[in-house]
């Protein structure tokens, strides 16, 4: 039953599907533009010049070649948390715990990277795998609570975010505090650091490639395996899936575990790629940023590359916006919130596009 979707000839031009993709893209663009407009009003209301602010944001993100590579780098963790949120969403699970899972992944990578001695061919993969395992481990508890006790994933993953935050803080300041004054772990061994893929002064490491591989992997898992087929069936209509003999609980459980592993990988790449250690409070909402990333992409893995780049650009441009236009970096949170609000109103936009514009065509 489940394997039916595999091996079927694809790529026959499907008009309806194309139309649907176009509509999704249009909705994302409408939401983005609307968010920027309302954001401009907010900036103006707080007494700054919106054009100046957006200009600085743009220059900060894309102004120079180096800035562009920074943007690419900043897109990596949100690409992974975006994938994490998306894969869970596709199975009707809302994983708000990406933040905590990313933290735990980063912590595991920092520990394995600093305290294990191995040649690079083994050390680096081991560090990366450790981060995925830690992220998965952190998603395991909410997943079990959901499966066994029907505890809301939303609430439990939020609680585990806070628990992770304090746990990591304890580990950084306590037993695994590195040398020196700063609240950080020891720097990881060179054998555990991701190599750069661009010559200096550009800053981009292998993590970007890993993130792209994760995108492809997630796509294959979702669209080319029976496991992904079952997950999507649950997400599309859980009761219909159940009637067809798909174990709804088991699929949600697995989706949350995979989601955790992806978020953990995001933390692992951040540590092995750019930070090389964990500084206290390093994450700054990478996990929560995964939500707009996934939503803008309508949970499509390949589209996530672009939405992650957009959020990455906001993150890398925000400091320039703060320093030259005088509007707080937090403005990018406002913009992301607005984007989500508009995307959330997708149904109404869809309705009017179909009934007004589509209706005229019929007449």
């Amino acid at each position, binding site marked *: 039953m489940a394997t039916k979707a595999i091996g079927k000839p694809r790529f026959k031009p499907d008009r309806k599907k194309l139309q649907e993709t176009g509509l999704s893209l249009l909705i994302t663009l409408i939401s983005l533009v609307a968010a920027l407009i309302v954001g401009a009003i*907010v*900036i103006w209301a*707080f*007494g*700054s010049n919106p054009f100046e602010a957006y200009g600085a944001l743009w220059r900060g993100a894309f102004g120079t070649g180096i800035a562009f590579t920074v943007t690419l780098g900043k897109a990596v963790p949100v690409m992974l948390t975006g994938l994490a949120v998306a894969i869970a969403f596709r199975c009707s699970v*809302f994983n*708000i715990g990406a933040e905590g899972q990313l933290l735990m992944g980063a912590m595991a990578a920092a520990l394995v990277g600093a305290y294990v001695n191995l040649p690079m061919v083994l050390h680096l993969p081991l560090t990366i795998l450790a981060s995925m395992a830690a992220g998965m481990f952190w998603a395991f*508890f909410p997943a079990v*609570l959901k499966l*066994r*006790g*029907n*505890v*809301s994933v*939303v*609430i*439990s993953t*939020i*609680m*585990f975010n*806070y*628990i992770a935050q*304090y*746990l990591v*803080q*304890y580990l950084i*300041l*306590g037993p695994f505090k590195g040398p020196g004054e700063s609240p950080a772990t020891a720097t990881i061994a060179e054998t555990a650091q991701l190599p750069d893929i661009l010559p200096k002064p550009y800053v981009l490491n292998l993590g970007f490639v890993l993130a792209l591989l994760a995108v492809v992997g997630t796509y294959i898992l979702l669209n080319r395996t029976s496991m992904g087929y079952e997950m999507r069936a649950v997400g599309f*209509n859980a009761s219909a899936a159940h009637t067809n003999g798909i174990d709804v609980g088991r699929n949600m459980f697995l989706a949350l575990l995979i989601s955790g592993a992806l978020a953990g990988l995001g933390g692992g790449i951040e540590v092995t790629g750019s930070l090389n250690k964990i500084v206290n409070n390093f994450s700054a909402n990478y996990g*929560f940023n995964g*939500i*707009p990333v996934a*939503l803008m992409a309508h949970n499509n893995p390949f589209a996530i590359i672009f939405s992650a780049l957009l959020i990455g650009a906001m993150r890398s441009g925000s400091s320039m916006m*703060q320093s030259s236009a*005088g*509007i*707080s*970096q*937090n*403005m*990018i*949170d*406002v*913009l*992301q*919130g*607005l984007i*989500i*609000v508009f*995307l*959330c*109103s*997708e*149904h*109404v936009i*869809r*309705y009017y596009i179909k009934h007004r514009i589509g209706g005229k065509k019929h007449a």
Partner: protein
Amino acid sequence: MLNAISYLLSATLRMGTPIAYTALGGMTSERSGVNNIGLEGIMTAAAFGAAVGSYLFQNAWMGVVFAILIGIAISAVHSLVCITWGGTQAVSSMALVLLSTGISGVGLKALFGRQGNSPEVPSLPTTTPLEGIPVIGEFLSQQSPFVYLLLLCLLITWFLFRHTRLGLRLITVGENPKAAETAGLNVHRLRYFGVIYSGILGGLGGAMLSIGSMNMFQEGMVAGRGYLALGAVTMGRWNTWGVFGSAMFFGFFSALQLYLQSIQVPVPTEFIQMIPYVATVIVLALSAGKSNAGIAAGGKPYTKFVQQR
């Protein structure tokens, strides 16, 4: 010993009250069929708004008014997106959290030229007139007026659901909106009421944080209390007294955390700070199964824009 008890009781009230306000509001909204996991956002923006109002008018009560207005504004956005337009409630509420934290950060910099926290603003005085009451007068007089206002809100909420037609109707639209509409009820209007009510109470909860127990707004000062309130709603099984009790239960754990820190137990602070969150998870796990059935039509949009299943 007596000192410890008095400290814990006082701290429980102080820590539990903001959670209880927000949780009672959240319960009302959820009973009417609209979940709002973004109570945290309402509290954050309201805490900020309270500080701004109090600063502008140099009067803490104006801060309370500001907080309520902001709570209404934010929940109005949530209502519009989720009730009228049929958006996914969990997603919309996460947007509220981002929006609120963002706006308070941007506002701090724009209005006060600072980051991290606002300047000191007038805060609500404690209820000193109660000092005259024998024996417990001293204890009562040290409490914030928010504590007494909470009792009022508690009674109003209880009365609403127990004794009024409006309360019954709210429950009906949460359980079966189709039947409610067939019976001639305006589903949307009732749900709007539920969500806005939650905004008002969430606003009070947020205001207490910045101008009740403190005299300034700090970024991150809500620290997950909105989420604890959400947990309290589930744990209290959508029953006024249950929700109130659960909120105070979380308040107690926060108080315990403060107490343990103050007597310097040889446990790392981080583990003590974890207590309320761990307690929530454990309690939800223990009360699992039976109580999590929830509101029948909770979380499901009821509009022409979304196909009904």
